[in-house]
């Protein structure tokens, strides 16, 4: 299955946006800060992921399955809300060259402790369970980053013995 990505910024849900190009870090973080600036939150944390030069790659490339990303993100919105916090996320689809950003997440909360705990849990769960697949781009070819990928929660169901 070959997927062709058009140039777009798509809001999959409130506070979840996908971009068909590398992320504009200044623009996105500035927008998020402004959006929440008058809501009386004291702590605003952003995590920005940038493509590193490693193993001779020229870029990384990403596939995303949007329906389940949306469900996953909405569960996080609910969890954040229960603690009085907001989560936000942006991710690129397709190729992102070295030194460009592919991923930004943010947690905004009234006080620092909730924000510090949530950013850690949010980013780690993102790595483990967001339905996003990463490929090394070497000599223009996409190679699935199998060794760095993690089976999602619930993986292996198809080879389990049934009860």
């Amino acid at each position, binding site marked *: *299955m070959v997927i062709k990505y058009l140039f777009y910024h798509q809001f999959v849900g409130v506070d979840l946006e996908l971009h068909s190009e590398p992320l504009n870090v200044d623009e996105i973080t500035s927008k998020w800060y402004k959006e929440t600036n008058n809501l009386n939150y004291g702590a605003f944390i952003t995590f920005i*992921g940038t493509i590193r030069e490693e193993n001779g790659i020229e870029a990384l490339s*990403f*596939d*995303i*399955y949007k*329906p*389940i990303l949306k*469900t996953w993100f909405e569960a996080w919105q609910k969890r954040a809300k229960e603690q009085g916090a907001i989560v936000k996320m942006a*991710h690129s689809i397709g190729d992102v060259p070295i030194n460009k950003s*592919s*991923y930004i997440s943010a947690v905004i909360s009234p006080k620092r402790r909730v924000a510090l705990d949530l950013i850690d849990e949010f*980013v780690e769960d*993102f*790595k*483990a*369970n*967001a*339905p*996003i*697949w*990463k*490929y090394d781009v070497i000599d223009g070819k996409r190679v*699935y*980053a*199998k060794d*760095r*990928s*993690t*089976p*999602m*929660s*619930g*993986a*292996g*169901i*198809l*080879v*389990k013995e*049934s*009860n």
Partner: protein
Amino acid sequence: MVKVEFLGPIGLDSIEMDIKSLKELSIYMKNSNELKDWAINSAVAVNDVIVTDINYELKDGDKISILPPVCGG
């Protein structure tokens, strides 16, 4: 009939299958040279909700997604 989508790096087109349970899908994938390795490490969603019970019964028109190991960011 249900539709089965193979996401991300699996790189196969969707197929339509006449199956009633995930068990039948499991048997199909374990017997496919292209799919048996993915059966081991993939998660499964039915109508975009992750399912963890292999005895889950399928209904006509269900969309099944096979989700291989992920790595966002």
